């Protein structure tokens, strides 16, 4: 355990990329215009693990995960430097197509953003159709499975042709989860996926996240410490754009190395 922690924490640029890590960042910096939102982030994320990202509001959690699938650069004036390896390949190198990166690294956003005029069915099927899947039977199956996983099927199974905008906020968030699951990415980035949900739906989503670990690598941003402790294997604590501490979740919550981390977890700020 101790050995692994060391390995997690000490990233040097010369180190050979290890295949058991799904994602690795190397001196990742991100800006909005002149404002620097991330400062020299070095983090290694293991395949088939759940990593929680915690930290006070505005510390850069969303920005960090948006750098992992090249969404950050879509904001006008946004800038990135450093490297992000996905299976050992730097996704920011010139010959990498961001479209392919985003197909492999799916995302659920902090604010639910279903396609409001499209039907519930078409929302879930949207990504599949981009991948050229047209077979109605296959689409039906995947749509159903994804909605079941997102714990939404029972509520919408009779209204699949209703528009996405007709759902409640929490239902919309689950629809977005189903939409992301449908394309079966390798990595799933979840930005506070349960903040709009009632406790029952939230706990179902937590169960889902844990069950997905077998097939996916998951990074979840959360403000809920209990949630981070319950579902994640590793926890990263960000503060003012810096990665303060990154370790096995149990360690972070029982015996953090940094005082800052301890204060944050104890609810003394943030």
């Amino acid at each position: 355990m101790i050995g692994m922690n060391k390995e997690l924490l000490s990233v040097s640029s010369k180190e050979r990329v290890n295949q058991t890590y799904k994602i690795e960042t190397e001196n990742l910096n991100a800006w909005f215009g002149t404002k620097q939102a991330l400062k020299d982030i070095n983090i290694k994320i293991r395949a088939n693990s759940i990593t929680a990202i915690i930290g006070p509001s505005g510390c850069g959690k969303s920005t960090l995960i948006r750098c992992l699938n090249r969404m950050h650069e879509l904001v006008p004036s946004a800038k990135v430097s450093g490297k992000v390896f996905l299976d050992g390949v730097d996704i920011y190198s010139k010959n990498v197509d961001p479209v392919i990166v985003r197909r492999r690294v799916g995302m659920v956003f902090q604010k639910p953003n279903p396609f409001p005029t499209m039907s519930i069915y078409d929302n879930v099927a949207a990504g599949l159709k981009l991948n050229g899947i047209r077979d109605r039977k296959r689409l039906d199956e995947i749509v159903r499975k994804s909605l079941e996983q997102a714990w939404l099927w029972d509520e919408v199974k009779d209204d699949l042709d209703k528009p996405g905008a007709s759902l409640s906020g929490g239902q919309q968030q689950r629809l977005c989860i189903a939409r992301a699951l449908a394309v079966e990415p390798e990595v799933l980035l979840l930005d506070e996926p349960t903040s709009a949900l009632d406790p029952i739906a939230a706990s179902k989503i937590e169960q889902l996240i844990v069950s997905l670990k077998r097939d996916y690598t998951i990074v979840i941003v959360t403000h809920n410490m209990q949630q981070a402790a319950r579902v994640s294997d590793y926890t990263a604590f960000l503060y003012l754009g810096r990665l303060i501490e990154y370790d096995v979740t149990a360690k972070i919550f029982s015996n953090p190395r940094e005082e800052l981390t301890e204060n944050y977890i104890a609810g003394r700020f943030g």
Partner: protein
Amino acid sequence: MDENMKYPPKFFLSVDDFFKYILGIISGLVVLTLFFMVLELFRHSLPVLSLKFVFGVNWNPVVGSEEYGILPYILGTMVTSVIAIVVGVPISLGIAIYLSEMAPNFIRTTLSFIIELLAAVPSVIYGLWGLFIFRFWVRDFIEIPLSKYLGFLPIFQGEPFGLDILTAGLILAIMIIPTVASVSREVLMAVPNSQREAAYSLGATKWEVIRLGVLSYAKSGIVGAAILGLGRAVGETMAVTMVIGNAIGAAALPTSLFKAGQTMASLIANEFNEADPTSLHPNALVGVGLILFVLALTVNLFAQVLVWRILKIKEGAVE
């Protein structure tokens, strides 16, 4: 607190109420004017209104053998407007997509400004340009080739001349582009970025993002913009009158795009001046006006409803 504030002096009406009622009365007057306009149009056209008026093709204002059928002009209006929409809307949408989704900021601002300016060009200027320049382009670059290669089709019959239904439709297409393009651009720019991001996160390419995240969200607004353009095309008068060739009666039936034609608006513009007040000719022209009015009103109403619907969806959606 000042006593005066607590108990404002009692006039017959407070200042606020006074303005409220004044504005209410003015708004009421506008509606009333519209109502009386329709009523007058209807009253004056009553002597000629009949099925024969709407479906007849002959037009003869000579007293003694008077006959008024306006089908050719109804069809002329429809055909020229459809050409305007079919040609103008895709171009406008292309411009709107470019401006909202692709153009760098500097080009976006400049080009949007120029397009808004184009909407302010008086239609008689489009007419002059159409008459002296554009019709020769249409004849040489569109009609002659079409006639050569597709001349066997009924809609391309006749000698290309350039003062005809096709030229009128194309002038209309050009005239509606500023309106349709700038309304569509605004509709597209109103699409929240989170929609584009949703599409990107599924691995969409730029064009797929536009289709999935932008156009699907904005589609009813775009249809609204197109119908707004249709409304303009239906009622447009001066430029059409100058290039359509002004045929009368059965000759004005739009059987070929290369024929001189006539729209309801251009007919009124051509004849109001020479109508004999003792004949039914003025009544017939007012009747044409009534039908044009109803058509334009319906089209605009439809557009308003569609634009209104997209605004409602926008409010309802979680951003």
